[in-house]
């Protein structure tokens, strides 16, 4: 039975939300206090960010990991393309593991423009790439597609005989992508956590494409937002539990890859070079504003899964790499109110996002403040009918006059303005009895 995008998204997000609760309850005696603890560690990180990044840099460097700093996406792309040019011939395959940081800087576009062939190796991202689509969820990039869409794409790309069976589709992708891993000179990944005290880069995943991309090619380039640093190795277990539980309802992700160094002389395999690109791209400025806590985010997608607006619209509606509640704050925080301030309205302010957040980011408070800022900046003003409503609701005499007209409006046989679009499937409330204000004034 074919599903619509909305059905796919609603089913997947609801399932992930339920699994999240069950797993966190089993993992932690008190999930609330674990989340509070994680938030406190992240607040320490944000306060000591400069020191921790320098400590990370020193430790990485001492193991032979080369550290690069990128103030913005142009700088990051230049660094990465530069490394590729120095090591790989034109057209060389760059095996890409799933990474939001590389989505944020639109790395594939820059690699292609420079003559390289980036190949997304995460199953979902691979499908996004062959469909010239964009990911619609932080963790589940093709949450908006169903097996029939995917079957058609695989048939078009001649990956094997037509099939709608998820196992068979996955195996076709496995076979196809194997060749990329074997022939890639360069592998690019993100970083989930980087440990300052040892210089270890931690990447979590379930498929194994991330391990392959960072093990088989001669060069591994890791791209990381500067806020991803953690102070100690001993902080890893808490965050590993939280990210696995919050993202997919797993007690542990299948693989936790902890990269400490390029291949050592006594090791039989692994990359000869490891590069770490520290990406700022607006984050350091966010640190000093009212949206600082958004930098606690570990990119688990739990707020997307629980958000009633995201469940209904899916990620593409946000028009940004980061969608859902986290995107509605992060996009304007990084790119400015003028460009992205309208996203603050894509929320019902129900508070579910803050409730599920593993690092307790006060997203609803931020959305409210962003709405205010956006309004003052003249961004995303209300549409005409809502402006009329807002004027009435804030001017008592107009409101009273309006109420007096209500019986007249109800008796008029013209289509009600609220009966189109949003109101098409909704019943208007029926007026019963007297006006509240009149009743209040007459009360004994």
């Amino acid at each position: 039975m074919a599903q619509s995008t909305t059905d796919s998204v609603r089913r997947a997000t609801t399932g992930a939300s339920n699994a999240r609760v069950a797993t966190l309850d089993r993992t932690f005696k008190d999930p609330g206090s674990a989340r509070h603890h994680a938030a406190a560690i992240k607040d320490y990180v944000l306060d000591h960010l400069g020191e921790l990044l320098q400590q990370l840099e020193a430790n990485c460097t001492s193991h032979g990991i080369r550290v690069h700093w990128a103030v913005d996406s142009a700088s990051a792309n230049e660094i990465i393309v530069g490394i590729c040019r120095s090591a790989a011939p034109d057209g060389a395959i760059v095996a890409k593991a799933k990474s939001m940081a590389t989505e944020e800087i639109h790395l594939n576009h820059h690699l292609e423009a420079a003559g390289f062939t980036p190949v997304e190796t995460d199953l979902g991202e691979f499908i996004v790439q062959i469909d010239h689509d964009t990911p619609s969820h932080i963790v589940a990039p093709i949450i908006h597609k169903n097996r029939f869409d995917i079957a058609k794409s695989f048939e078009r790309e001649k990956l094997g005989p037509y099939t709608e069976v998820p196992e068979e589709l996955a195996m076709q992708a496995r076979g196809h992508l194997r060749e990329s891993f074997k022939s890639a000179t360069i592998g690019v990944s993100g970083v989930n956590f980087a440990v300052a005290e040892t210089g270890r880069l931690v990447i979590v995943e379930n498929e194994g494409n991330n391990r392959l991309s960072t093990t088989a090619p001669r060069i591994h380039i890791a791209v990381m937002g500067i806020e991803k640093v953690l102070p100690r190795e001993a902080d890893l277990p808490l965050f590993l539990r939280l990210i696995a539980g919050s993202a997919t309802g797993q007690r542990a992700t299948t693989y936790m890859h902890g990269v400490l160094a390029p291949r050592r002389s006594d090791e039989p395999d692994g990359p000869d070079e490891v590069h770490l690109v520290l990406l700022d791209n607006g984050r350091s400025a966010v640190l000093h504003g009212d949206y600082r806590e958004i930098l606690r985010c570990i990119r688990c997608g739990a707020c997307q899964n629980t958000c009633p607006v995201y469940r209904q619209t899916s990620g593409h509606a946000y028009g940004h790499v980061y969608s859902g509640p986290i995107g509605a704050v992060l996009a304007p925080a990084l790119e400015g109110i003028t460009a992205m301030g309208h996203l603050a309205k894509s929320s019902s302010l129900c508070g579910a996002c803050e409730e599920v957040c593993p690092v307790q980011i006060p997203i609803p408070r931020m959305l409210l403040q962003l709405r205010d800022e956006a309004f003052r900046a003249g961004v995303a003003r209300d549409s005409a009918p809502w402006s009329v409503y807002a004027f009435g609701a804030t001017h008592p005499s107009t409101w009273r006059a309006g109420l007096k007209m209500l019986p007249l409006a109800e008796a008029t046989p013209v289509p009600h303005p609220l009966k189109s679009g949003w109101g098409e499937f909704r019943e208007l409330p029926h007026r019963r009895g007297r006006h509240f204000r009149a009743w209040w004034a007459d009360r004994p």
Partner: protein
Amino acid sequence: MSDRERILSVIGGSTGVALPSPWPGPSLEGALENRFESELKTLGAELVTADRLKELAGASVFADSDVPEPLLRGLVRTEDVWSADLGITLADYGIADTGSLLLTAGPGRNRLASLAPPHHIAVLSRTRILDTAEAAIEVLPSRTAVIVSGPSRTADIEGVIVRGIHGPRRLWVLLTD
């Protein structure tokens, strides 16, 4: 000004927020080996005895150099990890709480042996089963390492769990004394 200087200057200094002590992690009750086995099962992996390897007679194997020779009897050794039916490696530690394995890069230890073949067998000493990830992180060596929890999987197509998408479809753990 370099990017490094620009970023660090915008970040600025700290205001002295204190670092909380690490999260203590859960404490496990009961026998670690039993818990390890049941968690492995939940993940879709299996605890096996050396006898089970007989089923695989004739399969091509890519093995770590320190895997005990008797375990490889009846198997055909290959040096091409990409075409091997089987990868056999040692595991440094097991984690009972989550049924996980800690594998470390090092002399004779191929990172791809546990990853490229469709079937991975990890050899683990039963004296090396730790209780939690917290304990495993404490003994994490100064090398690149991976914690493996079950076979490779994806849920990207309609949330259906498919095993063996890029890594092994089958994961066996062989306990030794």
